[in-house]
């Protein structure tokens, strides 16, 4: 245990940590979607607060009864918008008095000067007037909910499923049954799209960060021991060649610590932006359909667990690269392709994590539940095998 602790201390060098922290801040600033949340999409700056209100009032899901209640809110919001519409001079001059007329004018192709003027005004209502923006985007949320209901993507019965007969029949039996179960559920999730996009995007950004951190920490640890001629001394002690196994274990634990720290910091940042308000909201909703039922909170916990596993595998990989490198620059040169290939592999297996397919484009990816786990286990297996071969070689080779 003492040796293990000392090895850990060798890994966590202050200067390296400071430099990495600086890099992480810059990387986060450039690439993390968190900083744009909830304005991830144009509308989500308004959607998300509205969803937060709905969650506060109704909980994580809407039953059919509660949904009817919510639809009344739509009427109220429309009434409020129509007050603004009727007060607007441009709309008055062009006989636009109702929300329906407003929407029609906004959507159609403006040809005449009058139509262009009206459309310009509708754009102003949508994008440059805070009061009307607030109302219109909320109505849009409710419109989208209603569209899902009308199209039989939620609260559906057997009749409504006929719309998707061809699509359902073109999928595997498991996918078909799962999709039917999702369409026919009687609870609508109140999770906004922006949250799912945020978690997905930033999960991969976190993966990149932990992999980079592992390489940055592990490379000098391995290479400097070799350069300083410590190995012959260490190996000729009572611990002997078991030191290599202990060093490997220290690297793996470091990977876990790195993931825990970075994941923890990011989770704090998520909490700061009230993302965890949606903790209990089911994740399977339009258009993201997953093989398993899980809430946003469970999904995030699963992501964190996967992050730890990915980080540990990354640590093994960086241990392997570091052990074979005789010079810092050699190590960095080998680390670049190794890290890129590893991250590309992670991306390949986690991009549509647990997703069945995409309803909007009627594509079915058929990503089995085990694709993600299987893929990550495969990568971990490769890393473990490489390291085991190395350790075995070290047991016998001349030093």
């Amino acid at each position, binding site marked *: 245990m003492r040796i293990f602790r000392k090895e850990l201390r060798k890994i966590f060098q202050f*200067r*390296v940590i400071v*430099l*990495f922290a*600086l*890099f992480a801040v*810059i*990387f986060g*600033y*450039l690439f993390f979607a968190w900083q744009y949340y909830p304005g991830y999409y144009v509308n989500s700056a308004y959607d998300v607060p509205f969803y937060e209100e709905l969650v506060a009032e109704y909980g994580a899901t809407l039953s059919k009864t509660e949904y009817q209640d919510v639809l009344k809110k739509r009427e109220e919001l429309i009434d409020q918008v129509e007050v603004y519409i009727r007060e607007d001079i441009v709309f008055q001059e062009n006989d636009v008095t109702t929300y329906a007329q407003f929407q029609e004018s906004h959507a159609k192709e403006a040809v005449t000067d009058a139509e262009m003027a009206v459309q310009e005004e509708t754009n102003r209502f949508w994008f440059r007037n805070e009061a009307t923006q607030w109302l219109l985007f909320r109505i849009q949320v409710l419109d989208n909910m209603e569209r899902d209901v009308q199209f039989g993507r939620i609260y559906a019965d057997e009749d409504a499923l006929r719309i998707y007969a061809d699509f359902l029949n073109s999928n595997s039996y498991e996918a078909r049954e799962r999709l039917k179960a999702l369409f026919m559920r009687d609870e609508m999730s109140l999770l906004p799209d922006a949250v799912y996009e945020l978690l997905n995007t930033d999960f991969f950004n976190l993966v990149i960060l932990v992999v980079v951190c592992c390489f*940055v920490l592990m*490379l*000098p640890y391995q*290479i400097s021991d070799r*350069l300083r001629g410590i190995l012959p001394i260490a190996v000729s002690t009572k611990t002997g060649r078991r030191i290599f196994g202990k060093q490997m274990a220290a690297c793996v634990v470091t990977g876990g610590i790195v993931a825990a720290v970075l994941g923890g910091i990011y989770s704090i940042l998520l909490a700061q932006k009230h993302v965890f308000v949606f903790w209990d909201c089911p994740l399977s909703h339009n258009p993201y359909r997953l093989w398993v039922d899980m809430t946003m909170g469970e999904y995030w916990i699963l992501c964190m667990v996967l992050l730890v596993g990915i980080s540990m595998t990354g640590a093994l990989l960086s241990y392997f690269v570091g052990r074979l490198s005789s*010079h*810092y*620059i*050699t190590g*960095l*040169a*080998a680390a*670049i*392709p190794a890290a890129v290939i590893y991250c590309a592999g992670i991306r390949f297996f986690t991009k549509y994590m647990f997703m069945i397919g995409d309803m909007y484009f009627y594509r079915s990816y058929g990503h089995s539940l085990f694709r993600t786990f299987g893929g990550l286990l495969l990568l971990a297996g490769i890393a473990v095998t490489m390291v085991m071969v190395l350790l075995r070689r070290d047991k016998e080779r001349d030093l």
Partner: protein
Amino acid sequence: MSRKVFGYECRKLLGAWFLWGLLVIFLVFDLFLVWENVGYDRAEYRKMYQVIQRVGLDLEETGIERILDGDREPIGNSEPDENSLERWYAEYVKTNKGVYDTLDLTGIRDDKIGMAVDFKPEGAYQRWIERNYEKLEARIQEIKETGEARCGFYPGLVYEVHSKLFGRVFRAILLELMIMTAFSVLYLMDYERLQRTESIVFCSKTGRNLLLGKCFAGMVCSFLDALILVSVPVGMFLWFVPMRGLWGTMVSSFMVMEKRGFFVYPFITFVPLEFREYLGLVLVIVGLLVVLVSVLAGTVQYFLRNSYFSMLCMSVFFWGGLALPYLVKNGFAHTAALLNPAALWYMCGGWFVEYDPSLSFAWSEFWTVGVWLTTALTGLFLGKRRFRREDIG
């Protein structure tokens, strides 16, 4: 440092297998990038090349009209789709030839400023931007009057030759080259410390000047990397996208025009530039960036004396350069923040043309390299002077 020692130092680098391995990996990636962008559709590019040659580079109006009226000899034994491709080309010319007449660059400038988050130029800075765009408007007039806009080329909105070559391929090459350069210089400069031969080599006649010589040797070998990394992928690109006879096309031609973000308008060069001249300038900037990165790496290594930390510092510096313009969002400081090597790399594909309202002046690329090179050389000089008095071993 004598030529012989320089030769030995270069040989150390040329014998470094890992650098060759990395070069091969980068080369493979670049070739894949070229294939993905133009290789897969090489047949289309070659057909279009035939069409451009037949129609002619001058894009005469009568000639275009004749094609559109069908009043033109069918193309020999060519397949029917080549005739339709020529017709399509003529329609493209006709649709887009008036783009300069309706171009409102000031409006585009205002839209770009409106869309940028937290970017609100005011006062002297706003006036400076406006003056720059007045010069650009005058340049547009010049383009219209001299007829440089009317040059045949691969239709940019579809074939995107300019952005594929300069915005994607060259951008990847440049990043790889900067990594290779930093690695080469740092590897060499830390070599003696890691081999524990410092005590012997630095008390020789060559002495501490050796370290500067290593920096220089690293730079020279990086030019060899540059030669390989540029010539092979670009050569492959040009093989897939024939350019013979098209090198004289002006970059500001409406045919080169591409969709950039939300905007569709031609590349407005600050000075008249043919495609070959543009490529030449890009290569000059690439070369200068190799020098800059070498000198920067040498400077950092002189002070830190540890190649690993030097590389980490340079990485942080690079990423910081990318992030800085987002932190300094307004005023001349924002423009100054954009004048860094990382931002210059990021804007590869938008060099020497109107691109960002904050950088809407000619030769900003040379200003960037010049200022940073001067700073780095100063740092290198100070580092060398410091090293002269430093204890070794």
